């Protein structure tokens, strides 16, 4: 079993690629760079496939399969190994990461072809793959944190890839800082885990956590604290309220990056981490509720913002935030496998959407504003059709991948609490609306751009091929989790069952209850579909039927429209409440007042005072002998009387 034995091969391959390109690739021709980058990821993907093969052959007793390679940190009884672990969840993540990553690498080789930073781009991208694989393969929280921070680093580098643009570097910093806030929570969570369980290995921590009795609802014990702290980290990484603000800005990066990092893989790390720690969450109901509510709110919140965005990538970005919200909703209601499933399908269709959007932008010569597009359907048919598939998928059209995963989630949500379910359904409607809006604005109607300047052209093959592959996945990927009602047997959930035993129960029960009354189940499955249809209809009516209506609508509902256009002015709020005060205090109060004023003032003050004292003192010696004599007499009087009357 080569790969299982030498698990480190997996992350190492892209790392080699990154190092090769990054350090030595300076003088290599472009095709060599491409070769190195692609081969490393391709090999990684193949290795992942091989791993799956070997993994499936493993007896259940050996799962999770853990391999420890060397001691990374050890001090005073604490010890963290460089240890990798494989279980079903890992396998899923591995496939998504390597697969989608591989496709996007191929796509990028075309998309970035003319960029001067080509080599840099690919070394970053490979480096990202390395850290992402480390993240999903890690066998303990600390190593997971390594990947966690590493992908953050790469996201920083890639968002700021066009470092000549102020906005790009700003976005990069913003991303890293907001993530750091999340990491603050994450690291504290890790510390608390260490303090509670005396170890950071999943193999040790999770069973113990599971063994502990669930903390009573409405009461926050140590597990709840851990869970919440970890969730802070997850919220940072996966762009949940209130830390989502970095993701929309992250669109400053090249589109493949948005596809890979900010849609398919990195941003889902939070979901993965929560799912990984499900044993802790399951025993911390309060934390579960928090996760569910935050996820749900994020979903609807960013969906509403997505309604009115005009930048094609921004729309997708907010949609990503919203979809991530769904995943957390799933985790929050205990349907971890559903969450992971949506993670996967989302990787397919959202990755596809971004790549297609990239193709559009490529075709439009860098234009991202949908108001300047339109009627591209004929000009770039491949792009259109693939993107159309993806839209159908995300909109939850029955039979498409998004349909299964989303309804899986809503099903679980509905069972847990109606309001969450209702919001979920509403979000589904909004999703379908803004996605079709995007589709119509881009591909339908008349072209709103200058034909002479913009020469719309279909993208090269190496960009289209990934689109097609992903489109197929986006369409068909859902069937592996089709509920038996649909004739499927939800292989996916069964596959993950060993990881999420508790989760299985909930949906199994669901199956029971639902099996009794199919029509009710129909209705349940129907609601989101109907919402989706409404959304579609609205979009069609507004952007195809009577394209002038949106304008009127915006004017009539100016207040809420402005609010949405302004993204609820959250960035402005943060700037005013946190950033500017912090800078002001540090600069004026801390530096100038405390440091220079108080402390240095005292120090220099002492010096000045003593110098002045010296100055006074020197004028006693006026040069006049009589004065000196007076002092002598004074001294004589003092000392004689001291001796005469003070002493003995």
């Amino acid at each position: 079993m080569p790969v299982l034995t030498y698990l480190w091969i997996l992350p190492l391959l892209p790392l080699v690629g990154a190092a090769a390109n990054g350090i030595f690739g300076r003088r290599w021709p472009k095709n060599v760079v491409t070769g190195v980058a692609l081969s490393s990821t391709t090999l990684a993907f193949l290795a992942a496939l091989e791993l799956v093969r070997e993994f499936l052959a493993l007896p259940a007793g050996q799962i999770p399969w853990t391999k420890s390679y060397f001691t990374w940190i050890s001090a005073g009884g604490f010890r963290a190994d460089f240890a990798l672990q494989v279980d079903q969840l890992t396998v899923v993540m591995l496939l998504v990461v390597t697969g989608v990553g591989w496709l996007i690498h191929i796509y990028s080789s075309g998309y970035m072809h003319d960029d001067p930073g080509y080599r840099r781009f690919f070394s970053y991208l490979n480096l990202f793959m390395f850290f992402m694989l480390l993240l999903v393969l890690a066998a303990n929280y600390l190593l997971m944190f390594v990947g966690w921070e590493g992908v953050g680093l790469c996201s920083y580098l890639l968002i700021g890839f066009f470092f000549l643009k102020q906005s790009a570097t700003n976005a990069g910093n913003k991303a890293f800082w907001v993530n750091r806030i999340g990491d603050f929570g994450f690291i504290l969570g890790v510390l608390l885990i260490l303090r509670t369980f005396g170890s950071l290995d999943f193999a040790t921590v999770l069973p113990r956590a599971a063994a502990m009795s669930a903390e009573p609802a409405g009461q926050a014990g140590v597990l709840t604290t851990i869970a919440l702290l970890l969730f802070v980290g997850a919220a940072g990484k996966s762009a949940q309220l209130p830390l989502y603000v970095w993701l929309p800005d992250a669109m400053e990066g090249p589109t493949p990056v948005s596809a890979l990092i900010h849609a398919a893989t990195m941003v889902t790390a939070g979901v993965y981490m929560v799912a990984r720690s499900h044993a802790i969450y399951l025993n911390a109901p309060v934390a579960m509720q928090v996760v569910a509510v935050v996820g749900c709110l994020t979903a609807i919140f960013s969906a509403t913002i997505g309604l009115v965005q005009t930048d094609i990538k921004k729309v997708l970005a907010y949609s990503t935030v919203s979809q991530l919200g769904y995943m957390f909703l799933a985790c929050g209601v205990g349907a971890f496998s559903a969450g992971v499933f949506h993670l996967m399908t989302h990787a397919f269709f959202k990755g596809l959407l971004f790549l297609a959007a990239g193709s559009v932008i490529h075709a439009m010569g860098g234009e991202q504003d949908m108001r300047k597009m339109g009627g591209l359907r004929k000009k770039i048919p491949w792009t259109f059709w693939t993107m159309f598939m993806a839209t159908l998928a995300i909109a939850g059209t029955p039979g498409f991948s998004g349909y299964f995963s989303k309804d899986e989630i809503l099903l679980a949500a509905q069972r847990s609490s109606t309001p969450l379910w209702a919001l979920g359904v509403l979000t589904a409607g909004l999703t379908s609306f803004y996605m079709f809006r995007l589709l119509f604005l881009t591909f339908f109607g008349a072209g709103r751009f200058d034909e002479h300047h913009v020469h719309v052209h279909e993208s090269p093959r190496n960009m289209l091929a990934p689109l097609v592959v992903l489109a197929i996945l986006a369409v068909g990927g859902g069937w592996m989790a089709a509920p038996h009602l649909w004739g499927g047997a939800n292989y996916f959930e069964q596959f993950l069952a060993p990881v999420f035993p508790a989760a299985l129960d909930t949906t199994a029960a669901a199956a029971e209850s639902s099996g009794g009354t199919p029509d009710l189940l129909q209705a349940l499955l129907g609601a989101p579909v109907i919402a989706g249809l409404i959304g579609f209809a609205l979009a069609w009516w507004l952007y195809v039927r009577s394209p002038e209506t949106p304008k009127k609508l915006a004017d009539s509902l100016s207040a809420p429209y402005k609010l949405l256009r302004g993204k609820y002015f959250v960035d402005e709020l943060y700037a005013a409440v946190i950033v500017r005060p912090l800078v002001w205090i540090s600069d004026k109060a801390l530096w100038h007042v405390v440091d220079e004023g108080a402390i240095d003032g005292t120090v220099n003050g002492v010096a000045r005072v003593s110098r002045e004292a010296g100055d006074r003192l020197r004028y006693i010696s006026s040069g006049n002998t009589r004065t000196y004599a007076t002092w002598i007499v004074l001294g004589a009087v003092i000392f004689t009387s001291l001796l005469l009357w003070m002493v003995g």
Partner: protein
Amino acid sequence: MQQAFLLTVLTFLPVAGALALLLLRSEDHAWIRRLALVTAVAEFAISLLLLRGFDSAATGYQFEEFHAWIPQPPIHYHLGVDGLSLFLVLLTTLLTPLSILASWKSIDQRVKGFFISLLVLETGVIGVFVSLDLFLFFLFWEVMLIPMYFLIGIWGHERRIYAALKFVLYTMFGSILMLVAILWLYRVTAAAGYPTFDLAQIQTMLSNGTLALPIRTEMLLFGAFFLAFAIKVPLFPLHTWLPDAHTEAPTAGSVMLAGVLLKMGTYGMLRFCLPLFPEASRRFAPEIAVLAIVGIVYGALVAMVQVDLKRLVAYSSVSHLGFVVLGIFAFHAVSIQGAVFQMLSHGISTGALFLGVGMLYDRRHTHLIKEFGGLATPMPVLAALYLFTCFASAGLPLLNGFVGEFLILAGTFAKHPAWASWAALGVIFSAVYLLWSYQRVFFGGLTQDKNSALPDADTRERAILFLMAAIILWMGIGSPFFTSRTEASTQNVLRLMQRTQAYNAGVGHDNVKDMGMNPPATPGIGANSATLYSVASSVKSK
């Protein structure tokens, strides 16, 4: 054993080199530089012998040298290293050649004096780390001031004189009180019948109860020692000399200052404050921890708004060393290990930062951030390596900064979750000030056309920075190489604290009156030095 004189050689080889430099003509810059470099490199090579002969299992001091020096009061030439000092010595011997290389071109005035000062400084610092006699320790501690004073004052920048004086006076204020404390401690040992300045012996006496420090004495002594160290670290609010010193010092000066001199403070806390005055350390720990945490956050916030790169790095040092102090005064094996490790990694990463800043200064003769901008375009390599160092300093995993900070936080959290939680805020801010400054210096378009033609890092500079980067990476991945060697000694520190405290709890308190505060006036001159040797040798033998 054949390494009987290893430490002596290590300590005085640089001075020998400095004396050799004296013989050269002051105009003969090339050879002065070469000779200095050769000396420093040889020094480093020799210091590697320490690693070879070091027994990581032993708790005691190794490579010990013990000779009588001044009979009255009994002062000995007593050298030795243990896990605490081993890597600090290596750090010193490593950074010296690097800073010599860094000043290869940038120093063209009074070259001879510069390298002499640098080498003398090295001797002083190494002496501090290896001396086991309080008097000897203090001697080196003070000697080190003068070369640094010259380095800042002669080869520094605009406000160099103010900075140099501030540096010396600040330090002196603390150290002179420490001298009083050292002598007072000596009086107490004299009162106990074994007058000595020998650290090892005092520790033995403390732990076997021959010597008992009344708590009041202990707290006063602790105060004096701690003040001296806290100024050196520097601990908030005693830090204001550091930004000035750093900003004005030449690159080599900043590197040595941040790299090793600051560590002398934290090292002193570990070597003296905790083992000698455990009870007092415990009592003051909360206040000190608060100061450390304030320092962490405060340093980071102030660093964030600096307009001068060097100042920024200086304040970041305040923040980072706050972590070290916190780790030390959490009294947890892990956190102390972390503190020791953090000392080293800070030495490396901040040293590297200063080297980078120095390279920028060599090109543009300014540290002001607004003078730069968009430098990534003309000098990609330097930009990349600088960014790497920034992330190391920001504590990115797999780089050196993370290991130390995490261990400190882990150990502290185990005992005082609140402390650790507050300290962890530093994790956020360090990223903020480092990346923000980096963005303003290297990213964006070129703001000034005189920056457009700046040459990228040349071979010498690349060699320096790549070496640093390699070490950063090594320390980040292979940390056990270090921690395994520091383990025993840190454990020993904690053990000493336990034993001594156990004794004090029993006996110390009832004889406050007749000991320490007013030691019976035994003639200090030549007070039973005969007994001393016997005891000392017994200490040595085991």
